[in-house]
């Protein structure tokens, strides 16, 4: 992958992971900074312009490695946490909350991977509790793996924590890293899926539905646990037939009995993120305003209808609404 500029925090420039990443990418310009936040956080940056050709920032996460998930966010575990070794994503989904949350579209990679695992080990010290850690909240966990090598490094240590489970949420079909290691019982590869018409209209630069289903098949054949994430359901009530056919297609192409979990979620975004989204994507403002209005009026019905469809294919115990 080519980058115009690589920014490196001064105190991470000698780290092994940083040097390894530099060896895997091409770039024209290297600039040192004191903190990633100097580049990433200032206001009055244009997310859409930066998205055309994002730069990369290599940094060290200093604190808050592991965060609590929102209440009721679960795939069956009582204690749930999330973490992000990366901020931002190579894809350009129109509905993505990251564009409302961040001022910059540059990729930040926190290269101190071991600090994340150490925090997870600490959290998992009570062996009687089963905990779930979600990766891919502020990024796509797999999409930049060929640059970050995060999973390759991280999974080796994670495998040893028997009471901890990891969800790797992704839309990526670059599954080479998962092909190269032995499938792990405590890791769930969770694919975000939507009907192809929604993929084309809303999920720019992402792999097609067909390619994602192919990857799910490959992973299931290898023995990986796979989850399905129908999140966000776009305009479900008005696209009921589209979604019905889509569910039929998905469940006809995969090994349903081996699916770890299925989650659904509607389009949701805090107001301040939403306003920013409208501002930077004015051409899509009508559709997002409609989606927001739908959310208020039809959210409950949508969830119920959708669940009714999904339990035709899977055990309701595996179904979660986030």
């Amino acid at each position: 992958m080519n980058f115009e500029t690589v920014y490196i925090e001064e105190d991470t420039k000698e780290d092994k992971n940083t040097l390894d990443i530099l060896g895997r990418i091409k770039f024209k310009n290297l600039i040192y900074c004191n903190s990633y936040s100097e580049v990433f956080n200032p206001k009055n940056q244009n997310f859409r312009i930066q998205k055309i050709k994002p730069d990369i920032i290599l940094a060290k996460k200093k604190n808050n490695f592991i965060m609590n998930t929102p209440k009721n966010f679960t795939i069956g575990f009582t204690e749930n946490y999330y973490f992000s070794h990366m901020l931002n994503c190579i894809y350009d989904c129109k509905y993505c909350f990251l564009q409302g949350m961040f001022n910059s579209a540059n990729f930040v990679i926190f290269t101190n991977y071991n600090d994340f695992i150490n925090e997870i080990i600490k959290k998992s010290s009570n062996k009687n509790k089963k905990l779930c850690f979600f990766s891919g909240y502020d990024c796509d966990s797999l999409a930049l793996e060929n640059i970050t090598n995060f999973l390759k490094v991280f999974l080796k240590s994670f495998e040893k924590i028997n009471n901890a489970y990891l969800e790797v949420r992704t839309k990526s079909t670059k599954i080479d890293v998962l092909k190269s290691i032995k499938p792990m019982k405590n890791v769930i590869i969770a694919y975000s899926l939507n009907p192809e018409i929604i993929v084309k209209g809303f999920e720019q630069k992402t792999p097609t539905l067909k390619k994602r289903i192919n990857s799910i098949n490959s992973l299931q054949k290898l023995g990986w646990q796979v989850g399905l994430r129908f999140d966000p359901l776009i305009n479900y009530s008005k696209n009921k037939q589209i979604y019905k056919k889509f569910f039929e297609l998905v469940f006809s192409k995969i090994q349903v009995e081996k699916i770890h979990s299925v989650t659904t979620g509607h389009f949701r975004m805090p107001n301040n993120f939403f306003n920013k989204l409208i501002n930077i994507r004015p051409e899509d403002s009508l559709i997002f305003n409609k989606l927001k209005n739908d959310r208020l009026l039809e959210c409950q019905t949508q969830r119920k209808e959708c669940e009714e469809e999904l339990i035709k294919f899977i055990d309701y115990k595996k179904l979660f609404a986030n």
Partner: protein
Amino acid sequence: MIHFIVATSSESKLIIKKLKLKKIKPSSGFDFFYNDNFSITITGLGKINSALGVAHTFFKFKGLSNNIWINIGLAGHEKEKIGTLVLVDKIYDYETQRSIYPFFIKNYKIKKLNCTCYSKPNFNYTNSLSDMESSGFFFSANKYSTKEIIHSLKIVSDNKFEKIDFNDTKSIERIFEKNFDQILYFVNDIEDLWERKFQKQNKIKIKIEKEIENLKYSFSEGMQLRNLLKIYYNSNYPKKIIEQNKSTKDNIYKIKKILKL
């Protein structure tokens, strides 16, 4: 519009000549020159003057946000050849120790270096450019525009071996002349980006303000109306929608009905 910000009259001369800019009279503290597309402001030396010059320019030219801001000026460097044109990729303010990082959408054939901005002339050359305006310029311009269309271009005027005569306008003009085509190419490229990303929205903004100028509305009605019209025109409805003989409330109702909101 593209705003050039320079510190001295000698740094402005060639640009004024080449772009055929006219002087605004009276000067109101700064010398402004302009045409339909460009302006240049001579701010005086130093980062405070530069910041003030940006602010004055902003209000002088209708206070439109997200215009292009380009700082051009002379700078010192340890070993770069005199006359070398440099694009600044990091501005470090020596006094406040704050840094700013301009964003480049592509690779230009102009050398890139970082620049340290001092409050006094600095002749202790390092491998960073040294100037006296860039940080004031950027911090100020970034209040009015997004950072991707704010840039600082420097021409090396002195190094540890030699320096130009800063009082010799002709020699300054010569090193500007040598780099002018490259500067203009760069500025045109930023303008292309501006056209792609901001021109349509600026036109819509002007259209909306014109359309509602004779309506009476409260603050919140005004906000709602502007937001709805923004959605309306961004959804490719070509026709004017506001009916001047109807109330703001009725117009809001009408737009909502059309947009099905």
